[in-house]
C-alpha cells in the first residue's frame, strides 16, 4: 500500500510543533440560564409582530432594490438603447437577447446610427444581479423597484421591448422621430437635449 506515498515516520513529526489553541469547554449552562430561553419565547408573544400582510399591504422596498428592468428614454422621447448588446454579454444567466438595427431617416428610434430592434429579458432566467445595468454605456438600462413578476405562462415572463420601455413623460414624443435639430448623438449623451422640439413632431 505504500508503493507511491511514503508516510512520515513517527520520529519525524514533532507533536509539540503542531500549534493548537486550547479551547475552554463551557460545560452545561446553569439551570437559570436554560430557563431563560422560555422567557424569551414567552415575552416575544407580547411584542409587535413583523409580518407584512402582503397582498393587502405592500411595504415599500429599499430604494435601490433590484426589480424589473426599464429601458429609459432621452427627454425628447428617443430611446437611449443603441443595441450594443453589452448587457446581453454581461448577463451571467444569459437572460437578455438584443438585436441591433440601423436608424434610417424614416425610422429614427434613438440618437446616432443604431437602435435596439429586438430587446428581450427572460425573467425565468434573470437573477437580478444588475451586471447588465453596470454594463450599459448609455444608461438605457436601469432597474425599477417593481417585484411582482409572477405569472402562469412561461411566455409571459419573456418581456419584450415594449414591456420594458419607460413611459412617455411630459415633453416627450413617441419615436420614431428625427433628432433634435442641431444636436448630435454626443449632445444627447451629454444631456444637452432637455425636451422635444416642435419640428420633430411634424415629420414623425
Amino acid at each position, binding site marked *: 500500500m505504500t508503493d507511491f506515498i511514503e508516510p512520515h515516520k513517527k520520529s519525524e513529526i514533532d507533536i509539540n510543533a503542531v500549534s493548537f489553541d486550547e479551547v475552554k469547554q463551557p460545560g452545561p449552562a446553569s439551570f437559570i440560564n436554560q430557563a431563560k430561553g422560555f422567557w424569551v419565547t414567552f415575552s*416575544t408573544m407580547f411584542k409587535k409582530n*413583523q409580518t407584512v400582510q402582503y397582498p393587502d399591504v405592500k411595504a415599500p422596498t429599499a430604494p435601490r432594490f433590484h426589480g424589473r428592468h426599464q429601458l429609459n428614454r432621452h427627454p425628447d422621447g428617443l430611446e437611449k438603447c443603441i443595441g450594443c448588446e453589452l448587457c446581453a454579454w454581461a448577463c451571467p444567466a444569459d437572460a437578455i437577447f438584443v438585436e441591433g438595427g440601423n436608424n434610417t431617416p424614416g425610422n429614427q428610434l434613438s440618437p446616432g446610427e443604431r437602435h435596439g430592434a429586438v430587446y428581450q429579458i427572460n425573467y425565468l432566467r434573470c437573477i437580478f444581479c444588475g451586471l447588465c445595468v453596470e454594463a450599459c454605456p448609455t444608461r438605457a438600462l436601469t432597474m425599477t423597484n417593481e417585484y411582482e413578476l409572477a405569472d402562469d405562462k412561461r411566455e409571459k415572463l419573456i418581456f419584450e421591448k415594449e414591456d420594458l420601455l419607460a413611459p412617455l413623460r411630459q415633453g416627450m414624443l413617441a419615436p420614431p422621430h428625427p433628432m433634435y435639430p442641431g444636436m448630435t448623438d454626443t449632445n444627447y449623451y451629454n444631456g444637452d437635449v432637455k425636451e422635444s422640439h416642435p419640428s420633430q413632431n411634424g415629420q414623425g
Partner: protein
Amino acid sequence: MTTAELLGADPGWLIAVKGLLVFIICVICTLMAVWTERRVLAKMQLRTGPNRVGKFGLLQSLADGVKLALKEDIIPAAADKIVFIIAPIIATSMCFMAFAVIPMTGVVNLFGHKTALQLTDLPVGVLYILAVTSIGVYGVVLAGWSSGSTYPLLGGLRSSAQVISYEVAMGLSLVAVFIYAGSMSTSDIVASQHQHIWNAVVLFPSFVIYVISMVGETNRAPFDLAEAEGELVGGFHTEYSSLKFALFFLAEYVNIIAVSALATTLFLGGYHALPGLGFTESWLGGWFTLIWFFIKVIAFFFIFMWLRATLPRLRYDQFMKFGWKVLIPSSLLWILIVATLRVLQQQGAPRTTILAFAGLVVVIVMSISSLMDRTKQKARAPLPDGDTPNFPIPSLPHAKSVNVSGGK
C-alpha cells in the same frame, strides 16, 4: 352515589349520545388546537400565523382538512396494501378510545338525565388508557413497516421505541398516584384530589416525570426526533397522503389532548375548580366544571406549544439515555419513597417517624448526588503530562497532544 353507579344508570341512547359527544369534542379540539398552535407559535416568532380563512383564520384547519381530503390518495407500489390502510385507522381510533374514561364534568343534567360527561368508568380506567395508547403504537409501527420504504421504516422504529420507553416512565409516574388515591379509576382519583389536595402538589416529582414523558410519548418537540425533517423526511408517515395522512395528523393532536386530559385528571384535580374557586361549580350547575376541565387541558397544551417554540430537538441517544437512565430510575426511587410513607401513614406511625423517614431520604439523595458530582469532576480532571491516548484525537483541554502520525 359514586360516578360508576351514576353512569351505570345511563340508558343506552344516552351512552350513544355521549360517545358522539366525546368524538365531536375531540375533533373540534383538534381543529382548534391546530389553529391555536400555529397562531401561538407564530406570536412567539414575531409572526402573525394563519389569519385569512374565516375570522382570525379560525377555519384554517378545517380548510386544510378539506384540502387533504381532496388530494390524490397514493399507495406506493412497494407498500403492503392492507396494513398500509389499517395502520392509520388503528392509530386514530385508539386515541379516541382513550378519551372514554376521562371525566370531563361532575354531575350534569343531560337531556333530563342526571349523569356525568364521561363515557364509562372502569375500576382500572388509567390502566385502560395506558393499554389503548400502547395499541396506538401499532399504528405507527405498521405504518412505517408497510410503506415499503426506508425512511418511514426508520421513523416508525424510532417513534415506537420512543413511545414504548416513555410509556414505562409514564406508567411508573402514575403508580404513585394509584398508591396515594387508592384507586385506578379516573373518577375516584379526581374525587380523592377534591377531598385532599391536588396530586401535582403532594406528588410533585411524579407530576414532573409525567409531564416530561407525555411530551416524549406524543412524539412532540423537543422529542420529535421521529419526524426529524433533516434526517428522516417526515418519519413514519412519509409515504402517506390525503385522508390517511389526515388521520395520522388527527391522531397526533387527539393524543396530545388525551395525555393533557389525563394529566389534568390525575394531577390537577380533574374537572373541579381551582382551590378557593369552588363556588363557580354551583353557578351553572355541573356544566361549569367542563370549563374548568378545558382551562386545565388548554394550559397543558400551551406547555406543549411553549416547549416546541423554545427547545431544540434532542439527539436520539441523548433522548433514550434520558428516558432510561434518568426518568425511569428516579421514578422507581420516588415510588419506593411514596409507598413507604403511605404504609407508615396507614399503620398509624407517629408524625415524627414519617418526617424522620422523609428527612433521611432527602439526606441520602443529596449525598448520592454530591458524590456523583465529585466523580464527574474527577473524570474531567486533566490527564498527567505525557499520558496521551494511543489514538488520534483533536485537542482537548485534558489531553493536549495531537497524535497525527501515519504509521505503517
